[in-house]
């Protein structure tokens, strides 16, 4: 009798626990729907207020798609290189290459038709050095600039620290002058002066200003199409120059290298264990394909991401034509938000996915409101401005990216508020700072300086990627040493 009562009580407790768990899951799904409703409400109400706000809403909804894809596919550029070097897992690198190829494929007709919003960046060794800084930072921080956004949406407060550190470092680094001017070569100063920038830009006071105007701008901004003597806005230039030569060939070689070094041996061992034939070209191709499809979730996210990135460019360009402006600065002026425009009347309005500049801008805006003058530098004052974050188009994209990631994480019951420890907070702050410096040196992050540039045939994209891989290798070396040291202590206590 007593045994029966105990069984019933245990069963009741189990049922109660299950009911509570189901209730918690249901609540999270409701939160996900609530977030979706909130973003819809923002879009509809602002559009009703003024039709120009649809321009910001386009950024918002593409940002949300990016966030959803990133969270669903655990899409992280840091992981691509880091996991390859640290644990010999290539799944993320494969996902990124798939996304890049698809982004390039959908971009090519848009570029050929002359509708692309993309502009190539100057090409020189600075892209590699910037990539090294960024690569070290993304490994130490535990994620790249874009994954820090989606991880914040998962409730990871370490990622939020990364965003704060990255934002602050960029804003300060872009404006640092005084003592830092001592580290500027004379040739840069002279060259910067020769650019004839407006008087409001104090080009000889600021390390980054002189680096940009005195060195970076002197290098050619060129795509693979242009390198081969073809215009970007042509079928040959877009498809042969940028897509085939600039993306398909190097991406295929990269995947083949990864297959040979990190996948082939393990794959063949597994197949041979099951008595399967892996000989000849057929065996190699099957192995190569197994690497591509090893993680369907990442591959699917990569596919959607790539297509969305290209469509984003097309929709933004369409709206620019419809409203008759080339930059959102004009639009902001028309609707009465004229604070924080650059001296050219522009604001940061990339027309495609970008992460870091809008993060620097909100800190720049805050510093300006605190009385710190920073519109005298090139980054804020001449190019990007520091508009109010509430109406900064790219900020809408980043906030929606966090929201999109949160929606998917809540829906799949993966949302968890994660409080940082002192150790993880320290890594987040240090890594974010490295990424901030790398972003300003490279004029972009893993998205703006690598992903978007590679996918659009910009010659500097692979250079930044090469630097990122080198930096990630150094970061992994450091963490291998760090974790080994900590784990050894625990293992010794167990006699292992």
């Amino acid at each position: 009798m007593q045994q029966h009562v105990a069984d019933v009580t245990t069963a009741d407790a189990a049922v109660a626990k299950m009911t509570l768990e189901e209730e918690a899951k249901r609540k999270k799904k409701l939160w996900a729907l609530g977030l979706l409703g909130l973003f819809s409400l923002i879009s509809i109400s602002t559009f009703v207020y003024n039709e120009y706000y649809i321009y910001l809403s386009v950024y918002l909804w593409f940002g949300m798609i990016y966030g959803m894809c990133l969270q669903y596919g655990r899409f992280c550029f840091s992981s691509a290189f880091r996991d390859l070097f640290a644990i010999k897992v290539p799944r993320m690198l494969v996902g990124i290459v798939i996304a890049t190829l698809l982004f390039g494929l959908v971009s090519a007709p848009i570029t050929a038709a002359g509708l692309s919003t993309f502009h190539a960046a100057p090409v020189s060794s600075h892209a590699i050095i910037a990539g090294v800084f960024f690569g070290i930072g993304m490994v130490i921080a535990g994620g790249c600039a874009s994954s820090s956004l989606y991880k914040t949406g998962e409730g990871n407060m370490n990622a939020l620290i990364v965003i704060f550190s990255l934002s602050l470092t960029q804003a300060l680094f872009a404006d640092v002058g005084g003592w830092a001017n001592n580290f500027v070569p004379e040739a840069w100063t002279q060259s910067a002066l020769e650019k004839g920038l407006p008087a409001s830009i104090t080009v000889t006071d600021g390390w980054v200003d002189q680096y940009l105007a005195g060195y970076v701008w002197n290098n050619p901004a060129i795509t693979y199409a242009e390198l081969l003597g073809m215009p970007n806005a042509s079928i040959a230039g877009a498809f042969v120059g940028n897509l085939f030569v600039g993306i398909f060939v190097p991406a295929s070689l990269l995947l083949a290298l990864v297959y040979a070094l990190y996948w082939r041996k393990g794959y063949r061992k597994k197949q041979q264990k099951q008595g399967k034939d892996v000989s000849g070209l057929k065996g190699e191709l099957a192995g190569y394909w197994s690497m591509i499809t090893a993680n369907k979730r990442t591959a699917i996210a990569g596919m959607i991401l790539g297509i969305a990135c290209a469509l984003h460019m097309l929709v933004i360009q369409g709206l620019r034509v419809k409203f008759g402006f080339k930059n959102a600065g004009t639009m902001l002026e028309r609707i009465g938000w004229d604070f924080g425009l650059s001296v050219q009347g522009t604001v940061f309005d990339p027309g495609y996915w970008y992460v870091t500049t809008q993060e620097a801008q909100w800190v720049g805006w805050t510093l300006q409101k605190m009385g710190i003058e920073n519109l005298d530098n090139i980054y804020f004052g001449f190019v990007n401005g520091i508009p109010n974050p509430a109406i900064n188009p790219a900020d809408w994209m980043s906030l929606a990216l966090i929201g999109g990631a949160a929606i998917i994480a809540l829906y799949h019951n993966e949302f968890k508020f994660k409080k940082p420890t002192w150790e993880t907070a320290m890594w987040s702050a240090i890594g974010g700072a490295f990424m901030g410096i790398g972003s300003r040196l490279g004029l972009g992050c893993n998205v703006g300086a690598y992903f978007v540039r590679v996918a659009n045939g910009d010659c500097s994209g692979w250079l930044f990627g090469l630097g990122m891989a080198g930096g990630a290798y150094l970061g992994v070396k450091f963490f291998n040493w760090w974790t080994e040291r900590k784990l050894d202590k625990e293992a010794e206590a167990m006699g292992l």
Partner: protein
Amino acid sequence: MGMTFEKKEEGRYMLNVNGYVCPHPQIYTKKALEKMASGDILELFFDNPSSGESIEQMIENDGNELVVKNVDAGQFEWHIQKS
């Protein structure tokens, strides 16, 4: 809260990397498995979803076996048997 690596009983270990973000969970898991003997079980606790994707492929590539795979409200509990 830091990383803990403990022996629960003969042939059974526990690695808790809750609170850690990438790349700590995957690197700690790799190194813990390296220290264990063939046939041993590692009970792994982590709460960083993206680490799970990498750890799963690492387990498969190395020929180890994922014998238990639980997730609840962002908390992962996986048991890995070393080959």
